[in-house]
């Protein structure tokens, strides 16, 4: 009965997104018809530099994706902070204490939160493999829902769905400092021996990491919030700085498809450096080209 129902459902698997698409398109279509008279440039010329950069990046991305599908291995340099995560989870298992994972304080529309959640899935898998436990306090309810699904899927993928504890994925508060105090409370009461901070952080970064330090936990942080990086570097054992943070999930997954995006960003960085050097030379040789270079950067 169950399998018949599933078959019947799978027949309509594209029906739901179709309704979604039709609903989203129908209203703007009527609005577009009413405002057809507006005469404005179709293309945002001021975004041309971004479009060119995106096309170049995508070219590298698909090239390395194609290469990885052919089975060619992609090399990534070792990042000590990422290797320390496994070590920290191992220590937590030995001591019978939980691992604390803080996915930043921004909402799900922030790319750093998404990158943090991608890392969470790998950390949760390691935790499940080691038969340890993980606590994930969140500041936004959507982030909490996504973290719940992520941790549940990781435990299932590691073959330990029974070890998943839904109560460990907690929504604390939308208020920044109420959330901070809540996480500090977890650190002091439940004494996790590994604190992992991955995501977007603001003024609470040092309050969290100093409390973690005073509780004696191993601390690994990763963020692209530049103003908070010095605090994490001062208070944590390992810190993933900006692009290392974005590369961490690819590094942990070892999936060639994911690694190809890291390779693409490395090559794109080379292109950027070359363009910058060319720009410096041209601006010094031909100062009248300064405006042109301002347009591109």
């Amino acid at each position: 009965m169950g399998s018949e129902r599933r078959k019947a459902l799978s027949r309509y698997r594209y029906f739901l997104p179709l309704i979604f698409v039709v609903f989203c398109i129908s209203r703007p279509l009527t609005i577009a018809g009413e405002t057809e008279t507006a005469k404005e440039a179709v293309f945002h010329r001021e975004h041309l530099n971004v479009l060119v950069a995106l096309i170049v990046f995508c070219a590298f991305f698909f090239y390395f994706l194609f290469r990885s599908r052919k089975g060619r291995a992609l090399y990534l340099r070792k990042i000590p902070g990422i290797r320390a995560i496994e070590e920290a989870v191992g220590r937590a298992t030995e001591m019978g204490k939980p691992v604390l994972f803080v996915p930043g304080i921004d909402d799900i529309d922030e790319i750093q939160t998404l990158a943090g959640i991608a890392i969470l899935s790998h950390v949760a898998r390691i935790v499940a493999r080691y038969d340890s436990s993980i606590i994930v306090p969140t500041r936004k309810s959507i982030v909490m829902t996504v973290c719940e699904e992520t941790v549940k899927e990781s435990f299932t993928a590691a073959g330990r769905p029974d070890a998943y504890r839904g109560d460990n994925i907690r929504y604390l508060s939308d208020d920044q400092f109420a959330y901070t105090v809540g996480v500090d409370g977890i650190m002091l009461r439940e004494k996790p021996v590994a604190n992992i901070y991955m995501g977007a952080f603001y003024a609470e970064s040092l309050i969290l990491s100093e409390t973690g330090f005073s509780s004696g936990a191993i601390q690994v942080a990763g963020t692209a919030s530049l103003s908070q990086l010095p605090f994490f570097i001062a208070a944590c054992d390992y810190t993933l700085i900006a692009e290392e943070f974005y590369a961490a999930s690819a590094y942990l997954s070892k999936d060639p498809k994911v690694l190809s995006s890291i390779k693409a960003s490395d090559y794109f960085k080379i292109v950027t450096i070359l363009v910058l050097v060319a720009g410096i030379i041209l601006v010094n040789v031909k100062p009248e080209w300064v405006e042109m270079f301002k347009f591109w950067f």
Partner: protein
Amino acid sequence: MLQVRVPILITIFVGVFMILKFFFHVPFIKGVADELEQWCLVAFAMAIVLGVANILRINLRVVMKRRKDWPYKIVLVFSMLVMAGVGLFDLITRGDVSVGSRFQYLFEYILTPLSATVFALLAFYISSAAFRAFRARNIRAALLLISASLVMIGRVPLGAAISGTLPKLADWIMAVPNTAGQRGLIIGAAMGVIATGLRIIFGIERPYLKGE
């Protein structure tokens, strides 16, 4: 498969329209993208119910089973219910929760001072973190100590009183080596953002879905 493909298709659809909106000024594209953004806002607003349910489920269970620290959980649930209750009461009786309302009173005289107290702790934490960070254990740490000391002295009136060069030196450290380093990080982070964005839009990285 249904649970994997449908969210990926929705992600691709939304992601592509957001990118198109950034580059093109076409009323239809803008309309669809704006509509999707509205849907996002509605989803965000609805999700608060899930958050409240999570708080009640986890904390009430601890209270019922008299687990460790259960009195704190009562305080938490009570505070949440009082704030929500007073807010709703004000909405019904006054029609808003603006200045002069009971909700605003609780917010201004309880929540704001508590937040300010936690924020103020930062000053002490900065001192303890700086004490550890500024120990000259190796050449790099020594460089950090020297440059930080110069910036700190140069940014206070005492620095200018000692020598007029110190504020200029502090400004130079902030404007040249510091800015150069920060720009390098920004460029690297921007590439990480593009790579992560593409991985998510094309469904290559989907930790929250089955089959990853």
